[in-house]
């Protein structure tokens, strides 16, 4: 099949991205991406409040890929089948947009959609309560806390999460998630 995760970001100009990575996400990659992003934000003397939010959202986005990206479909070209994804960050006139893409199994699409719909239709006060509820009552697993990363990203940015799913085959979909990080 002639499909690449990059197609999910074809409407964005990757040449303008100040950060771009596609491949297997391991601890080392996370360190490098974070170091590079922090270096760029510091050297451009970015507003500290915005810089911290961007860093936080990047951490959660990378760790979402690390913990929650499903295996790539068989036949898809990747060095390793697990923890494969794409992350990019662009500077916009209002702040920064952080986008991640990865594969999910079709059985997870509905669950993810429900989670994202709930987050996007909640007020900031409801998001805060939801965060505390999960923090206080859910057991932590190897993969972290179910959905807390997405809630945290929404809470830190205060913006709706943009997302889409593109069917790959009967078992897999490609998932794109974008968060706009802005400060008032």
């Amino acid at each position, binding site marked *: 099949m002639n499909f690449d995760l990059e197609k999910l970001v074809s409407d964005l100009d990757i040449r303008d991205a100040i950060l771009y990575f596609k491949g297997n996400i391991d601890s080392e990659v996370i360190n490098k991406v974070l170091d590079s992003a922090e270096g760029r934000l510091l050297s451009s003397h970015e507003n500290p409040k915005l810089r911290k939010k961007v860093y936080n959202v990047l*951490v*959660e986005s990378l760790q979402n890929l690390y913990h929650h990206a499903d295996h790539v479909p068989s036949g898809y070209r990747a060095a390793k089948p697990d923890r494969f994804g794409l992350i990019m960050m662009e500077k916009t006139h209002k702040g920064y947009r952080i986008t991640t893409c990865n594969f999910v199994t079709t059985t997870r699409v509905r669950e993810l959609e429900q989670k994202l719909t709930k987050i996007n239709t909640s007020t900031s006060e409801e998001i805060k309560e939801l965060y505390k509820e999960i923090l206080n009552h859910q057991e932590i697993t190897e993969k*972290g806390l179910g959905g807390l990363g997405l809630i945290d990203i929404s809470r830190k940015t205060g913006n709706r999460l943009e997302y889409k799913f593109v069917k790959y085959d009967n078992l897999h979909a490609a998932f794109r998630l974008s968060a706009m990080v802005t400060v008032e």
Partner: protein
Amino acid sequence: MEPIIIEGTPKTPTIKFDSREGIFEIKGRSIPENSVEFYKPLNEWLDAYMQVPLDKTVVNIKLEYFNTSSSKCILDVFKRLEAIHRSKHDVEINWFYEEDDEDMLEAGEDYDSIIKVPFKMIEIVE
């Protein structure tokens, strides 16, 4: 009992829990991929300290960043401190946050609303 000291790294905080002075500190960044593994020795140490706590324990939290998986582990640390407080020993948690870092202030307020231990929010002015 011996203090527990763990040196910080770019992804994990410096931990200094001194059972002789009753002063505990978590400082730096807490963004490891596997937070449970990192916090396990600290929580085990606290389980032992809970058996013989000092009359007063002061806890200073000076975090620059922490990820969501650390947030649960930090709550587990606070729940142990809450148990010490419930057993009629003084516990005070000082939550430091940098000037204008509203997200870190809110994170401290979240814990304050969950944990029944006196919390003090302290702004670090640069």
